């Protein structure tokens, strides 16, 4: 065993686990951060999508030993704190989460934390590229939803983009 230190949702944590254990299991099984969901464990379904240093990543595909003490992991639980206070909505959440609520996107809800984290990263990415989200961008989202909430996801991303 060895000690692994990194930052989760603004809090530095140290976990006693071998470095090859993937971050998803450290979050869920050892730290009790269950917002990121398991859907495949092979970086396909994207249900565990979270952020590392502000960019989308899939913790099922990252050994915890690859994180350094200053790497900041943000899960859905920590997303509201990433939004400036004045940009948070009526529920005190990140604008993308508020758009999700307004559009009533969720059905079973299992994939939705990952969908929201992917959506926020997509908007940030296209903004960095000096553009807005296109239909092709939406077509390219790999996060699967077995309930088939895709239409409302697309609407909520466009709505969330204007709120962000």
């Amino acid at each position, binding site marked *: 065993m060895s000690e692994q230190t990194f930052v989760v949702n603004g809090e530095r944590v140290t976990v006693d686990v*071998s470095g090859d254990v993937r971050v998803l299991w450290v979050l869920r*099984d050892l730290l009790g951060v269950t917002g990121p969901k398991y859907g495949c464990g092979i970086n396909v379904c994207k249900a565990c999508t979270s952020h590392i240093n502000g960019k989308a990543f*899939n913790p099922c595909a990252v050994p915890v030993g690859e994180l350094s003490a200053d790497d900041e992991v943000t899960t859905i639980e920590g997303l509201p704190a990433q939004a400036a206070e004045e940009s948070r909505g009526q529920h005190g959440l990140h604008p993308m989460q508020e758009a999700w609520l307004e559009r009533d996107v969720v059905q*079973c809800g299992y994939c939705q934390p990952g969908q929201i984290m992917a959506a926020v990263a997509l908007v940030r990415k296209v903004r960095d590229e000096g553009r807005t989200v296109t239909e092709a961008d939406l077509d390219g989202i790999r996060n699967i939803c077995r309930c088939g909430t895709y239409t409302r996801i697309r609407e909520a991303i466009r709505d969330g983009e204007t709120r962000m």
Partner: protein
Amino acid sequence: MTTTDGPRTVNRRKFMGYLLGGATVVAAADLGMFGRGATADAAPGELPTLPQPAEIADLSDLLTLAAAPTSQLITVTINDDGTASFALPRAEVGQGITTAAAMLIAEELDLPVDKVHVTLAPGRPELLFNQITGGSNTMHAMYTPIRVAAAIAKGALLQAAATLLGDSANKLTSHLGHIVAPDGRRVDYGKLSALAAKEQPEAVEVALKDENSHAVVGTPVNRIDALDAVTGAKQFATDLDVTAALPTMVCRAPTLNGTPKAVHNADRVREMPGVTHVATIPTGVAVRASTFGQCIDAVRTLEVSWNDGPVAGMSDEDALAGVRSAEAPIPALPVGETVSGDFTFWFRSNSAMDTNSAVADVRHGSAQIWASLKNPNVAQGLIAEALGIPQAAVTVNVVQGGGSFGRRLFSDPAIEAARISKAMGVPVKLMWHRADDARVGRTHPLATSRIRACYSGDTVLGLQQAHTSVETDFRHGLGDIITAKAADLPGGLGNLPFSQVIFQLTTILPYDFGAVGQSLAETDTRFNTSSMRNIYSPDVRTANELIVDQLAQRTGSDPLEFRLSHLRNGRLRSALETAAEKAEWGKELPEGMAQGIGVHVEYKGVTACIMEIDCRPETVGRKVRNAVTGPRVTKATMVIDCGKAINPRGIEAQMQGCVNDGIAMTLTSSLHLRDGHFQEASWDNYFYTRQWNTPPELEVVVLDSTEPPGGVGEAGVAAAAAAAACAYARATGTMPTEFPINHQTLSFDPKPHAPPVPQSPTDGLDHTY
């Protein structure tokens, strides 16, 4: 101008119920009512088809009737903080029934929806047939019982307020959680709850609120669990924090349903980092560890000798040959010109995002189970049997499910987790790996559907359909252990009659096509099957609608006009007319694009779907990494009349899901059996609809209806699957005969079967964005 439309007749029938003894108001319904059958109205000038069994009494009626005798055991409680609580004896798996139940209670009680707490009831065997979540029946069965219970609670609050305020109850009114006197004095429900409580149960009579004055029911309401879901707080089985229930996985055989013969390195695996236990169970070798990652490592390290499963060596084609050999002759038809079709529907997976999972604590002769279960009382009986302990020693807690699509009718993970916990002597949190969930989990059975129709001029004289299928497992019975056991008689003797009944109670051909006959033959009990967001309907109706288009073509009719002139269901005719208008049926499209129609009658409602598909080479050939692209449905229009719409926003959501399911079933998603096992181990192997497949334009219309509320969750799949198939046929000029249309192409490199689960990648930081 005069009008003959008077006010709608309002049923102010009184209902009976009870106020139960206790410290707060607890009210219950007592009902023996059930819905009436659909009526058939013949299209003028067409050869009428006699009503089919499902038009007189369908699966919804059966389930509602079965649930009625125990409705008095369904209770609504008023809490001393002024909120109401209701433990719904059904499973919420995304279909929105907790929200709909909260709306019904809010309506009758005059409370804001967010003051109604709806939880999922644990297994309650005394409910008998009233705790099965299936057949999209929840609202049909519970619309009245829930309202009656809430209305009785409200009556008790009014009585208590009358005493407190010194006024007669009929002069008092309610307003959002308060009882208000004529002089403006008000008292909140929380304060009244204890005053209104009864020491002994008391029978009462109650009238329900006039449905025409509903202010919550019928309005679009957002899901009551949405806030939890978008913040990551919503808990599924694997999110539960049950003391000492450590992550647990199972190493499974390289052939479907193979069994462990011997484990060669259990001691070595026990020494691996994080691993606490290794135990052999009937379905494989279980490992328990500090993290699921360490379980995956252990599963991949286990060396196990296996007994072959019952389909070892078999492929899809072998399973199809078995079905072919069970096909019965199609009955003779009247003389005329004939149209025929022979369609194959390959195995399709109902794997949900939230894989098969359960928490189990089996110690000291009793069992505590937590899982998403649509038949918790069958689970209780089967777990008791598996563990050799009395049924009463098994507590089954129903957890929110991350999708079901039919799979959670069965309790496979709960039974497996119970066996593992017993074998290890410690609590376990069992989670199936995605690879197992797709390969070993239940499937929609492979089936063929053969149709022969004959016509003369533009009159259809008859249509006969022979549907033949690998057995569909109905061993969950009606949700109780007795009928579940009856369905489990050896050799399929119990299940096959069950499937015949279900087929006849769910199958309606909604056209006047003269002599109509539809039959089912099932064979082969070796696969893990179940219903899949509908049972037979998507396949049966896809085959039907393709033949309808053939009949239209032969008789020189437009597909829409042909359907409208032959439909024998007025509600469906209205829905199809609306869909045609919204979809701009018949509009000009480039070559390689076309529209297609699918309609369906089930769950006490009707759906009509029109899809527009793009089969042009540049679209079909578009590339997405590790994906199936192919024809793209560019626009879908879905119209539903589901009877009284309790929550139009939820219904719209379900129809959107049904559209995506229908597209997947027709165009992209199937399992491939090779050498005794299914190949699909990932969402990039099993091609459910993704963002690059979903229609960029999707419109849902929920029609106003004065009929009682029907089912919604599965209602749109059959029409959607059929519409996609008919659009594809019209766009390409070729009627497809197997589904999904891409089945003959294996669009991925199969992952190994030994070890049974793939290792997680390590390059995630190379793919950030």
